[in-house]
């Protein structure tokens, strides 16, 4: 059978299975086994268990639960609240200041945690009620956090970039550096939108601004000693990673340890029960992600066995003589895949197909990683699997999902705009890593 026809069968079958509401990890595994047996016979089952095991058996993957732990430990301590009030007090004069403080808090929290849902939950729990209380509309309050939360996977550390690095054999440290400037650029673009929104569209917000009390210098200063140690950990972890001092797993493990020490010292959170609960929530998220990674590896292995990977890559290159046409098609494909699948699954499943295409066309794989990630961010705030939307729905059950979605749409457009900007000025991605680590000489 023509591999392209097989590809079509695979796509339809996979979507059907996943739409049934089966956990994505088990659905993907089941699809892989069914395809292997159908097209290659039962003897393929002999390698399936080993492939599945091998998908998890990697020291680098350890950085995923560790970065999740770092984020959860902060999210479950008053640190998130302090971070938030701190920014609010310092940015009080800016119109739409509270919205901007929220975006800022999301970006800083994103630098402590590698996951979008964690960022959303940590800042949203305080931020959304506060914004609504001060008269911002439900749409802007929820949309800001949904979008701000997605910064979690762009601003390092990022689980999505770790998985991209493992799947493509690129340097995780360099990927992180690549994400830094675009991450803050995106945060800045979000903030500009918040400004425009509160000046011209949301008149309630302007009213809210007039009612504000000026925070005193003392108020501004008193939060700093509690926030600065966490910022120091961020700086430490990043320095260790980029300086090539330690591997991501080592940096994340020590980072997680230090965060636990800090919340014990600053917030007196050292009771075994509390620590246990923090680790338990983190474990839940990391096990879920790790299982999806293992299943996606099995799926990618299956695609390659059926020769789908190779022929899809081939036909994508031959699709058009203009590399930008192919690139736009890849983006649309990623966007659609992101609607249905969690980012880590999309990366593991498609990187073997896309990376050869990207390098053949002459694009930089590091630059592509960032474009890839922003595409996945858009998927996080679109139904049916938009994780962030559901987390926000959990925080504010009285705001309808469509209202949250409406609030998120401008941010989706901003993200698409960011992709266009990165295409025109790829230096935004590559400048910082080139400066710090030297030019990438290919791999």
């Amino acid at each position: 059978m023509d591999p392209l026809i097989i590809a079509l069968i695979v796509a339809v079958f996979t979507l059907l299975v996943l739409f049934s509401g089966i956990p994505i990890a088990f659905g993907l595994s089941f699809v892989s086994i069914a395809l292997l047996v159908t097209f290659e016979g039962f003897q393929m089952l002999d390698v399936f268990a080993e492939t599945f095991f091998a998908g998890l058996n990697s020291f680098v993957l350890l950085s995923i639960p560790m970065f999740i732990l770092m984020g959860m430990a902060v999210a479950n301590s008053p640190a998130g609240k302090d971070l938030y009030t701190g920014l609010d007090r310092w940015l009080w004069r800016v119109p739409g200041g509270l919205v901007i403080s929220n975006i800022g808090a999301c970006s800083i929290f994103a630098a402590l945690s590698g996951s979008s849902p964690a960022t959303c939950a940590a800042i949203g729990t305080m931020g959304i009620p506060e914004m609504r209380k001060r008269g911002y509309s439900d749409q802007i309050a929820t949309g800001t956090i949904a979008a701000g939360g997605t910064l979690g996977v762009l601003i390092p550390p990022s689980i999505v970039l770790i998985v991209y690095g493992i799947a493509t054999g690129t340097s995780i440290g360099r990927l992180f550096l690549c994400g830094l400037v675009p991450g803050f650029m995106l945060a800045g673009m979000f903030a500009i939108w918040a400004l425009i929104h509160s000046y011209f569209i949301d008149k309630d917000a302007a009213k809210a601004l007039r009612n504000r009390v000026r925070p005193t210098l003392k108020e501004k200063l008193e939060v700093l000693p509690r926030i600065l140690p966490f910022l120091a950990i961020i700086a430490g972890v990043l320095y260790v990673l980029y300086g090539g001092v330690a591997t991501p797993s080592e940096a994340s493990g020590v980072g997680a340890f230090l965060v636990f020490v800090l919340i014990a010292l600053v917030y007196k959170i050292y009771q075994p029960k509390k620590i246990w609960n923090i680790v338990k929530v983190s474990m839940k998220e990391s096990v879920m992600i790790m299982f999806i990674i293992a299943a996606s590896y099995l799926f990618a292995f299956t695609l390659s066995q059926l020769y789908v990977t190779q022929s899809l890559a081939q036909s994508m290159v031959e699709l058009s003589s203009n590399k930008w046409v192919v690139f736009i098609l890849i983006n649309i494909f990623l966007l659609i895949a992101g609607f249905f699948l969690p980012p880590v699954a999309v990366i593991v499943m498609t990187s073997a197909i896309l990376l050869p295409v990207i390098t053949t066309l002459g694009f930089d794989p590091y630059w592509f990683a960032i474009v890839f990630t922003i595409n996945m961010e858009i998927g996080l705030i679109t139904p049916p699997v938009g994780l962030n939307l559901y987390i926000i729905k959990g925080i504010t059950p009285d705001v309808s999902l469509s209202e949250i979605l409406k609030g998120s749409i401008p941010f989706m457009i901003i993200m698409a705009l960011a992709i266009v900007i990165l295409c025109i000025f790829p230096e935004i991605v590559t400048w910082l890593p080139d400066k710090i680590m030297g030019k990438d000489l290919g791999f």
Partner: protein
Amino acid sequence: MKKKYLQFCDLIAKACGAFAVLALLLSILVIVELVFERYFFQRAITWQTELVTMLLVASTFIGSVYVLSEKAHVSMEWIYDFLSKKNIIRLKIFTSSISLLFFLILFYFGFIMFEEAFTKNYSTGTVWDPPLWIPYSSMMIGALLMILQYIAEIIKLTDEEDFK
């Protein structure tokens, strides 16, 4: 009998959760130890990376049982909006059976991997050189417990269907 089985599965799920939490906590400590050995004492790393990788694999396979009992494995539940309550339960029984089938296959082949490594005394072939059946067993045990858990899930779902 049924009630006892469900209680038993509940207990297993909690124990699996506790195991995964302990594995993660231990990993943190081992990593900190590793960093001290490597960067402060300039010693070679022998067992630490292998041990934490094993712990990671074990906590994923075993912890998965707890995650299932908490319904925290991500899925696309969009279609439920269009179905009646009864049909949702039927669909859930169907998808649980598919997952059950997957774990039966995983258990069988996991067992073969484990048995081969155990009887032939395979080891990882590194400096530390632990026997391979230890990491392999976590996949087998995890799959087995997932089978028990999914049977419990299906029992609960059929009860709900009868009740409706």
